[in-house]
């Protein structure tokens, strides 16, 4: 028994070591790559400093920040009333809303952007009309409004699940009824009762959105815009260390954030990290 147990442990140790090398090796190697000059055998953290001075860094970062803010704003304004409605009044509509929210998992971003670019192409056909002006506005190079509009669709599955878990965790029906009986309007109830109780859900939904927008490459690059994720690649073709340094930093930053969400989420809502939220999202930004 003891012998079999020991053998068992060795087996597990071997698995963990191999997986550890595969999963952490590239990160360590990438870090070494950024700080080590193989020709001169010198070590320096210069690439991490150069990043801030590189051409286009500020503009692309600003664009990404704006897109994230807009995406979070739109998706929350859209989803909070919708989720509230299906939880309080319209349980019948739940199936429909959930199905619609999960559609982006079936339509891959590449296919969705193919459709979007077709629609944008139609708009440019009739010159001078309001559709043409709207279309041009949506594709403005400094702040392409089309990107937050599409990103909202892409994050819908995750925001749906985050809010759904949040609404299940508190007895939202009683709280809302109490507030309404005391004479509060729907707007006041939402703002003073619902939003504070959904704080964690709203936060984790927003952080997931932020992480997705920061890493979103497919839609932006195909439509020809240069937010942060696209800028890394564009700038990366020539010089060696800088793009690796930037992507390493952005990767670690988003991992820290997601790790926090995974832990906060599992504690607050008793959703195990194995809940469908992280699972289905792999279809996304990759």
């Amino acid at each position, binding site marked *: 028994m003891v012998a079999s147990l020991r053998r068992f442990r060795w*087996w*597990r140790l071997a*698995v963990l070591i191999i997986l550890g090398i595969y999963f952490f*090796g*590239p*990160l360590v*190697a*990438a870090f*070494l*790559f*950024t700080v080590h000059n*193989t020709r001169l055998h010198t070590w320096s953290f210069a690439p991490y400093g150069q990043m801030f001075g590189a051409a286009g860094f500020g503009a692309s970062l600003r664009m990404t920040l704006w897109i994230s803010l807009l995406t979070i704003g739109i998706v929350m304004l*859209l989803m909070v*009333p*919708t989720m*509230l409605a299906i939880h*309080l*009044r319209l349980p019948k509509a739940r199936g429909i*809303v959930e199905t619609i929210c999960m559609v982006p998992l*079936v*339509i*891959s*971003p*590449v*296919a*969705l952007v*193919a*459709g*979007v*670019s*077709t*629609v944008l*192409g139609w708009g440019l056909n009739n010159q001078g009309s309001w559709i043409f002006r709207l279309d041009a506005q949506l594709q403005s190079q400094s702040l392409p409004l089309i990107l937050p509009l599409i990103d*909202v669709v892409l994050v819908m599955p995750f925001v749906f699940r985050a809010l759904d878990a949040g609404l299940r965790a508190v007895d939202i029906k009683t709280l809302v009824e109490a507030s309404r009986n005391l004479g509060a309007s729907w707007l006041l109830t939402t703002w003073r009762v619902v939003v504070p109780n959904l704080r964690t859900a709203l936060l984790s939904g927003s952080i997931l959105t932020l*992480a997705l927008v920061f890493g979103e*490459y497919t839609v932006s*690059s195909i439509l020809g815009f240069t937010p942060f*994720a696209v800028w890394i690649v564009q700038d*990366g073709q020539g010089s*060696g260390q800088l793009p*690796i340094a930037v992507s*390493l930093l*952005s*990767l670690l930053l988003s991992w820290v954030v*997601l*790790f926090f969400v*995974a832990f906060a989420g*599992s504690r607050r809502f008793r959703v*195990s*990290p*194995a809940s469908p*939220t*992280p*699972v289905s*999202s*792999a*279809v*996304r*930004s*990759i």
Partner: protein
Amino acid sequence: MTALAPPHDVETTPPVTVAAPAPSRRTGSRSSWLALAPFVVYTTLCLGLPTWALIYESLRRTDPATQQTSFTWANLTTAWHGFYLTALWGSVKLSLITALISVIVGLIAGYAIVTSRGTVGKQLVLALSGVLANFGGIPLAFCFIATIGTAGEAVNLVHKVAPDFALDTFTGVVAVYPYFLVPLMVLVIVPTLEGLRPQWREAARNLGASTWQFWRYVGLPVLAPALLGGFVLTFGGAFAAYATAKALTGGTVPLITLRIASVISGNVLAGQENVGAAMSINMIIICGIVMAIYLPLQKRSARWLQA
């Protein structure tokens, strides 16, 4: 019956009070349907319209000479032939291989996690899997380029084992995809492995079953829906991936996502947009089949977890 009758007569007023809120509830439900209106309008415009555009464009063809447009099945049949079929087949092959690798490795890793004793470590690994499964894309591709790309830190090590290995080929992509697919598989399989009760094993042993027999007749049948579901899900993830493959290969490996992207970005002849739309429809059909297989399987394996 007669004894019950008086209370009924007495309570003639409550139905009135019940009847009073009823209309307000009805108007309330009308206004709650109204609360769904922004959602419906938004998804129609940003999700429905692009999808419809794809279907419409994939069925249309503009004659380059006369500028006349007509409806045709030609785009859809073109998208199933030659150059386009190669890309579709490349994507399917890549997804099948990486999904198979990820299912096997994910199962072994999941088993190692479930049978380990520490709860904190288990939680940590699961949270880490949730993170790793999520956001690969460009940064991940760049980390691999820095590691085993042509000038990578560890490329010499890899060349000792596989002299012909290059990251910007099909094999290179196969080496990278499990990075986000294995954690995905771990997330799928761990709840099911945890549902595999030790009592079942004890019961099987008491009835004289060997380890192999236990796995053959109890373990695997219980795990089968989750394994198949994980396979389908990782297949879908690999199939839809674009950024990683693009950054690794620059578009040289024939994959359907890369092909669609180059068509939309206008790197090809005019008139190809319709074929691009048709390829996208193909992709949606395959992803739809994947989801249609996955969802019932998930329900089935969920049954074991509740028990």
